[in-house]
């Protein structure tokens, strides 16, 4: 009898403490964001940067208690896998993210072929997939949940070459040198087509394997055609720097273009400031200089303080997309990728660190509006420094935001 009373009392005390214990007002869930990104290899700067920006956003969102969707609080958590710029590995890690971790959102990927590999898993499983890869076939109607987070050469080239022809009316001959893969061909062909519209003919079109080490021979062949401007198209930073260095060694002092150069300061570390003189591009500008928003300057400062490395345009673009996506999740109160995709487009233009940020180019890509558009800043390397020269708005963006200007 005594034992029975004792047990009942103990049970009662335990239940009471349990009921009196702290209880969250709203149930907390986890929103898992997956990434299949290059964390090693020559493209690591893009993948590591995208992962870091997702971490920064995650910290900011979770510090405020998470995303408030459908009466629940969602803490954001990311899982990033290294795809090693290998197609088999990309598919393996994407399968893991989609089927094991059950992610519905994959934010971040770089290097064209790996995006194509990943979308073979994400598209049939209705996973929203944002990336920095280039290639027309990544935004067709067959992949409506794909988003490209920043400009590709197709958005930039036309405006770039028209602008260059205005600045340098005597520009008549172009030479391109680009990697021998889809990104490289897109960049090379894009530059040639855009230059042709501006009245500049292509006199040399070269493609190299990414493992190529020495460019003396091919550059000698290009220089024999006496181009007025040489476009490095989608050359990666280290290789681009080497090409600039060897062009300088071979005596070339003319104009250089790098339509898809996303991080010229990294290339300057390879080639030196003299070799980079008169390099013009629209995929990188001085993030602390003229024609930038105060928010971008603050973001770059914070990133460099935390990671002691410079920021790349590609990763900033991905940051803008991720922020737009998280904002839209709360605004549309949905975690359904299909509904969210429409909500993201409908909610544009966003006030992003790059200026007004929206999605368009549905006709060009023969799909839905999934290509990010924002103000394009033209910069040049002068005396070893990046100097911002001006900016343009893509016609679709201009139609939305009118005569928008950067704050003084």
């Amino acid at each position, binding site marked *: 009898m005594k034992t029975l009373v004792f047990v009942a009392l103990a049970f009662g005390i335990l239940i009471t403490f349990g009921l009196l214990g702290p209880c969250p007002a709203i149930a907390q869930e986890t929103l898992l964001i997956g990434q299949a990104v290059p964390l*090693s*290899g*020559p493209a*690591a*700067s893009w993948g*590591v940067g995208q992962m870091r920006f997702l971490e920064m956003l995650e910290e900011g969102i979770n510090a405020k208690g998470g995303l408030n969707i459908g009466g629940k609080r969602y803490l954001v958590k990311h899982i990033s896998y290294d795809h090693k710029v290998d197609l088999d590995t990309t598919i393996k890690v994407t399968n893991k993210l989609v089927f094991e971790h059950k992610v519905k959102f994959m934010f971040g990927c770089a290097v064209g072929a790996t995006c194509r590999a990943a979308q073979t898993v994400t598209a049939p499983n209705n996973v929203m997939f944002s990336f920095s890869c280039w290639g027309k076939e990544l935004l067709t109607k067959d992949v409506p949940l794909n988003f490209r987070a920043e400009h590709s050469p197709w958005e930039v080239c036309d405006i770039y070459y028209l602008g260059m022809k205005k600045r340098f009316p005597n520009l008549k001959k172009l030479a391109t040198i680009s990697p*021998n893969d889809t990104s490289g061909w897109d960049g090379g062909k894009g530059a040639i087509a855009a230059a042709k519209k501006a009245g500049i003919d292509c006199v040399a079109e*070269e*493609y*190299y*394997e990414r*493992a*190529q*080490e*020495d*460019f*003396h*021979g*091919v550059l*000698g*062949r290009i220089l024999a055609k006496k181009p007025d401007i040489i476009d490095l198209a989608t050359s990666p*930073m*280290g290789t681009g*720097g*080497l090409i600039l*260095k060897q062009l300088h*060694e071979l005596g070339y002092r003319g104009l250089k273009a790098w339509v898809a150069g996303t*991080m010229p300061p*990294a290339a300057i*570390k*390879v*080639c*030196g400031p003299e070799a980079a003189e008169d390099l013009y591009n629209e995929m990188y500008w001085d993030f602390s200089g003229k024609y930038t928003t105060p928010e971008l300057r603050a973001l770059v400062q914070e990133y460099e303080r935390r990671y*002691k*490395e*410079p920021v790349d345009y590609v990763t900033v673009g991905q940051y803008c997309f991720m922020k737009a996506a998280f904002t839209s999740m709360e605004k549309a109160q949905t975690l359904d990728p299909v509904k969210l995709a429409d909500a993201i487009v409908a909610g544009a233009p966003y006030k992003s660190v790059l200026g007004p940020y929206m999605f368009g180019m549905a006709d060009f890509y023969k799909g839905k509006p999934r290509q990010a558009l924002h103000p394009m800043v033209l910069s040049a390397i002068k005396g070893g420094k990046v100097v911002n020269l001006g900016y343009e708005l893509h016609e679709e963006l201009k139609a939305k935001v009118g005569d928008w200007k950067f704050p003084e």
Partner: protein
Amino acid sequence: MDITTLLQASADGVMLGMMYILIALGLTLVYSILGIVNFAHAQFYMLGGFLTWWLFGEKHLGYFLTLIIAMVGIGFFGVLVERLCFRPFRGKVLEAFMISLGLIWVFEQSVLKIMGVWEKGVPRAFLGKIEFLGIQFYTERLVVTLIGIGLIVALQFFIKYTRHGRAMRAIAQDRECTALQGVNIDLTCSLAFGVGCALAAAAGVLLGPVLYISPYMGGPPILKAFIIIILGGLGSIPGCLIGGLFLGLVDAIGSSFVSLQAVEVLTFAFIFLMLLVRPRGLMGGLKAHE
């Protein structure tokens, strides 16, 4: 075909070839003596490159002093790696292969963590051009070629005329008999590994100012080294020389007159033919551990 361009391209080809030979020689030396195929061999080339960036590029040490420090330092580091990582698995080919793959990742990621993801440039060591018989050659490339030739000749001298070199040749022929002769096998193997790593480091120092430095710069050269070894024959030093020169000349002349894509096709077409006609390579032969 412009003869001036052909001669200049050939000079570039010889320079590149010498550098690939330095890496391939180290690889073939290690295989001949230790019986292992060290896939991490080009990581010592990468370490040599970073040491050049630091000592020559940042601390402004002399070029030749940097070369000596890199070769000696990385050579000793190689001895340590052999002692700790490969000696316990001597004679076990698969295990040694796995160790070498693991070492690639360890070296790359360690350097990536310390040095960051961005590539680095090294200032050019020698500026200007030298004119010879009406042809202009870049001074830097010429010096690199001459130093490469010098190192190859020094290696040949070491292998042929020194006591340790003779011991290495003896081990390559018959390890057990060599041991019976009183040769310290462990010391000789460590020395061979160290010499191989020193040669790879030298290539890193020489090519650093010509190209650029990156944690992943070991990838293309190790592939080229294996191509050279296949062409020339595994375990054959003269074969390495022929294979390396062939590869360098095809690369430079092909890119100057045809296209970079054609270079890849030509190189692999030749390897295919070589494997069909003479699988051992041009000068390959049997070694003691086969």
